[in-house]
């Protein structure tokens, strides 16, 4: 694997407000990496620095080993898909998609051929003569993607590209985007605040908090081996408990409930069932344990558990994650 983008101690402040403190990250060629973090943590700022719309206050950005820190966006071999699409309203779908090739004065015949391929690939062939205003949100988004990938960029930056779409459409486009990435082998840098989206699409996820990387790793590592309290609580649901002097986290689906009088040795806590909520695929059971903490368990069967019942709460030792 070869590093395609390298951020070396990149810092960004607006006035005296430090948005990104010294940030370093290496991105491999062909990988799908997601920046995941709460609103305002600096994801868009990072993307804008990589694409060249914002110059870092200090530090360097390398593309393919070349320092591109102060190279303008139109000379960087990467493309961005904007959150609000930013399609040109005065051009047809075809002209929007061809824009990049026209600016680079690619020969007509090649333009035509690549347009056809991309239109076919994004299923937009029948809409090519329309103006963007005459398309649905999902179609507009596909035009934005087509307009970027027709340039065969080395890297595609996507800043919450599906943020404005409804659930079903998001799901479909997630699959399409993942396929595009796999088939074209383009490096994707993806920003989202949707964990499920990050989990299902990414090769690696970087969890960003206040401009810093909290943890970077595969979706499994991030989920099962969170390295900090922030990651443990930000990604998915987690039960955080203080045992002896350690802070530990256990995922709700790893928790089992037992009759209180069944004197199983591995009962870690006792408590009273406070609530049982049906979530469609699972039952979410809240148990108020000693020290007044609430432990959540995700069960596939409701069994005979009832509100107010006193129960034993258990989990396997290997499902504990020790948080510093």
């Amino acid at each position, binding site marked *: 694997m070869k590093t395609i983008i390298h951020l070396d101690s990149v810092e960004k402040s607006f006035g005296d407000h430090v948005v990104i403190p010294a940030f370093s990250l290496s991105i491999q060629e062909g990988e799908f990496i997601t920046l995941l973090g709460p609103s305002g943590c600096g994801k868009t700022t990072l993307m804008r620095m990589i*694409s060249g*719309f914002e110059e870092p206050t200090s530090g360097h950005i390398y593309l393919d080993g070349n320092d591109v820190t102060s190279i303008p966006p*139109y*000379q960087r071999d990467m493309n961005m898909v*904007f959150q609000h699409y930013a399609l*040109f309203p005065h051009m047809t779908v075809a002209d929007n998609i061809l824009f990049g090739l026209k*600016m680079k004065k690619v020969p007509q015949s090649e333009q035509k051929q690549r347009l056809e391929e991309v239109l076919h690939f994004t299923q937009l062939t029948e809409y090519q003569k329309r103006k963007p205003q005459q398309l649905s949100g999902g179609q507009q988004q596909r035009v934005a993607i087509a307009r*970027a990938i027709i*340039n065969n960029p080395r890297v595609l930056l996507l800043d919450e590209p599906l943020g404005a779409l409804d659930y079903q459409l998001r799901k479909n486009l997630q699959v399409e985007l993942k396929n595009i990435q796999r088939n074209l082998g383009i490096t994707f840098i993806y920003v989202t605040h949707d964990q499920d989206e990050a989990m299902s699409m990414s090769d690696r996820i970087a969890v960003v908090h206040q401009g810093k990387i909290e943890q970077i790793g595969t979706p499994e590592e991030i989920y099962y081996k969170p390295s900090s309290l922030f990651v443990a609580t930000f990604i998915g649901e987690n039960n955080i408990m203080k045992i002896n002097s350690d802070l530990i986290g256990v995922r709700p689906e790893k928790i089992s409930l037992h009759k209180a009088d069944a004197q199983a040795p591995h009962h870690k806590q006792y408590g009273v069932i406070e609530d049982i909520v049906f979530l469609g695929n699972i039952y979410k059971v809240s148990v108020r344990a000693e020290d007044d903490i609430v432990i959540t368990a995700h069960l596939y069967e409701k069994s005979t558990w009832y509100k107010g019942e006193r129960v034993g709460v258990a989990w396997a030792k290997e499902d504990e994650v020790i948080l510093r």
Partner: protein
Amino acid sequence: MMKMRKHLLFAYSMMIVAFLYLPIAVLILYSFNDSRINATWEGFTLKWYQSLFQNDRVLEALYNSLTVAVITTVVTTILAALLALALHRYKFRFGKVFNGLIYLPILIPEILMGLSMLVMFSQFEINMGKTTLIIAHITFCLSFAIVIIMARLSGMGQDLEEAAEDLGASPWQTFRHVTLPIISPGLIAAALMTFTMSLDDFVISFFVSGPNSTTLPLYIYGMVKRGVSPEINALSTILILAIIVMIVIAESLAFKGTKRSQ
């Protein structure tokens, strides 16, 4: 009771409309009146329009007005576009103060502007004529034109220009293929507005015009001093119609396509 109120409201609205348009309607009507005196209706005629177009002094005033208006329009639109683009692209430190300075001339009474320009031109010992007229017209039209173009630019936002740059367009290509086509309705609206304002300005022109640069409004004023003739009505009618047409076009262009579908 409700019905009564509705009728009253309607009557009131009609009165306001009459109040606004009656003088103009009368003026237009009497331009077709077959009588020298504006008092009684004696039948339909077009002879005032005919004599108007045989009057050399009217034609010269028309020529002056059009020359001044055309040059003012071209220069103002270009200057305003450049300034609006600069303000849109670079947020400088005193941006707010600067914006205020641009709006201010819209609020300054015309008579003060005319007077101050007269003082300035005589300070520099510039002879009054078409040049001073054009300079003065550019000065008072500039603010309006900038405001119209700025509105269009801020409606466009920055996304589109960034998208173009991201796709490999140089700053010039971005301007040529994205910014210009999108703001062009604003440019046309600003140009039409400038043309109209230049064409019908009286107060400022009164101060800064010279003996050979009588414009139509100044000529009309001169005619009135010798008594209101139906020819003035005819001339005014033509002017009003021309201005109405241009304002309608300017307005419809200024707002055309600003609502982007999302």
